[in-house]
């Protein structure tokens, strides 16, 4: 499968991380290798020491973008949820990654403030937090994102369907109805059997099993009339039927 980075951008508390996690869970259910990158985690391990100046924010996104490019190149579907307020750096990492789907999670400031359980907006408005996007720092809306999610108007399920639909449309996911979810209880047994089989991976093994089933049970097991005629002729020529 071709890797891709699904980049969620939007105001703080607009619902980026929620949607990214939902997408990731759905991908895992489908047996697709996905990786989640989130601002809280990367700031702890990847960009420790960087602040929230424009330069530091750009550097943070650049580092995250580099990790995304590596994962994407190795076939993962990366879900990345970052405010990433500046258009230039988003465009820069788009170029770096290549297979890049920008999802703009659009949400009114009022709704974001309402969702802000940590009270960050309140502190920013009170001047206790500097350079806070949407309050004291600009958010540059994407000009041509692959997808706009209006998280203050859509349910999470609707938004997820839209994202999956876009990934299918762009060819990063199989078409709807063509992907089969293998329940975990079966998947575990199949994975256990895999080392004894001569198949490189689980999908190939499953395809093999299905093909055997189809071969035995297909309603098209019989030959067509013209094929029957051809077989009859071949057998007659050798005297195998009289």
């Amino acid at each position: 499968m071709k890797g891709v980075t699904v980049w969620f951008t939007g105001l703080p508390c607009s619902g980026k991380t929620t949607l990214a996690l939902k997408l990731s869970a759905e991908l895992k259910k489908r047996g697709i290798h996905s990786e989640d990158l989130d601002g809280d985690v990367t700031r702890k391990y990847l960009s420790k020491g960087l602040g929230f100046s424009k330069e530091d924010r750009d550097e943070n996104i650049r580092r995250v973008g580099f990790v995304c490019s590596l994962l994407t190149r190795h076939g993962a579907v990366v879900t990345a949820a970052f405010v990433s307020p500046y258009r230039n750096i988003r465009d820069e990492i788009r170029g770096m990654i290549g297979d890049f789907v920008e999802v703009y999670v659009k949400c009114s400031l009022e709704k974001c403030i309402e969702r802000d359980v940590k009270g960050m907006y309140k502190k920013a408005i009170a001047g206790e937090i500097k350079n806070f996007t949407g309050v004291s720092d600009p958010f540059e809306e994407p000009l041509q994102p692959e997808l706009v999610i209006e998280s203050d108007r859509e349910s999470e399920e609707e938004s997820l369907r839209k994202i999956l639909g876009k990934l299918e449309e762009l060819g990063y996911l199989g078409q709807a109805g063509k992907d089969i979810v293998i329940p975990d209880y079966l998947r575990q047994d199949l994975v256990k059997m895999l080392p004894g089989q001569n198949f490189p991976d689980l999908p190939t093994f499953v395809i093999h099993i299905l093909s055997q089933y189809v071969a035995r049970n297909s309603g098209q097991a019989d030959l067509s009339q013209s094929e029957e005629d051809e077989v009859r002729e071949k057998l007659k020529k050798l005297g195998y039927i009289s």
Partner: protein
Amino acid sequence: MLAGAPGRPSLLPGMKGFFSGRAARMTVSIPEISAVSWSSFMTGTQPGEHGIYGFVDLVPGSYQVRFPDFRDLKVEPFFIELGAHGKRSVIINLPATYPARPIPGVLVSGFVALELERSVFPPRYLSMLKQAGYQVDVDAGKGRERKVEFLADLHCALKVRKQVADRLWEREDWDVFMFTVTGTDRLQHFLHDACFDGQHEFHDEFRAFFHEVDETVVDFMQRAAARPGMEVLALSDHGFGPIRSEVYLNPVLKKNGFFSSETPDVKGLPGISGRATAFALDPSRLYVHRKGKFPRGAVADADYERVRRDLKDLFRAYEVGGGKAIRRVYYAEELYSGAQMAAAPDLLLLSEPGIDLKGGMEKDRETGTSHFTGMHRQDNAFLACSRPELIAASPTIFDVKGLMYRLLAI
């Protein structure tokens, strides 16, 4: 053919030398035809289990015939089963494997393959086969009247098949490599009489083709033998012999009161009358026309054994040219057992050498001859192995899979 007829040079001297002359005579399935024999070989089971009783079979509850194929095989062939042991197989031109389906390795289906597109797995090899000019089969129709062309086609098909096999030998990472030669069967059906008759128009061509087969096969064997730990098996799915007379079973049944047609203008099995008690399917299968099993069945359960006995008596005593024609009459359960017994014929005939049995539904006489000069034999197939001590005392084709697994330490 490995040893050659007494006093005559072997047709396959290279193979004979390779195995130091230690080939065993092997019996095969009854009927002794490729669809049944190769299905038995690849599954290590008999038709009562694998479900292939002939090139044609009956649609249950009717008089319609159908043509079973690889999809009808009810037991996994060894090359699928070996996947569970982490082993890959390259199988080329194996009959009764059409249409090809996914296997751990490569499969190129053999007779009765129709389209090349559906004869190859994985499909990525299709273009390679097409470019090489691979033919799934030669046109056997030429064997009757265009023999020079027929022989040229056989040589060409063998040559291309070898080229394709050579490439797969090198490209694929395999544990089992199987190359099936079918040209010798085609040749013997039409020109068996040329084999030992030095005056025959095609005597030299006949032997030349066998020598080409010999060189082709020995080349693979020698390469295999050069690989550390590699073992070699060679076998035929049936033997061959000259035809003395063809015997048409349905006319025999008709003459003896077992078979009759509803009306003269409805030909074949669909025209069978409600008074008929038995009929035959190619080549040597007899069916009791039972009530409840067939739409116009005439034989009640209470009479079934009596009809079977009568049929047995008829064919045990049947003679052609003053000689016994049938070596043995079997009830199905003497040969077969298993989950697919419902589709089994009721009796099977094993003919004497030279007596070629056919259903002959539309024939108006009991015996005759035709343009065919060679016929399959059940009792003179061969089996050879690089470890001859592993071959059973009286091997059958049902044993070969087990032998192969022993060689593979499975």
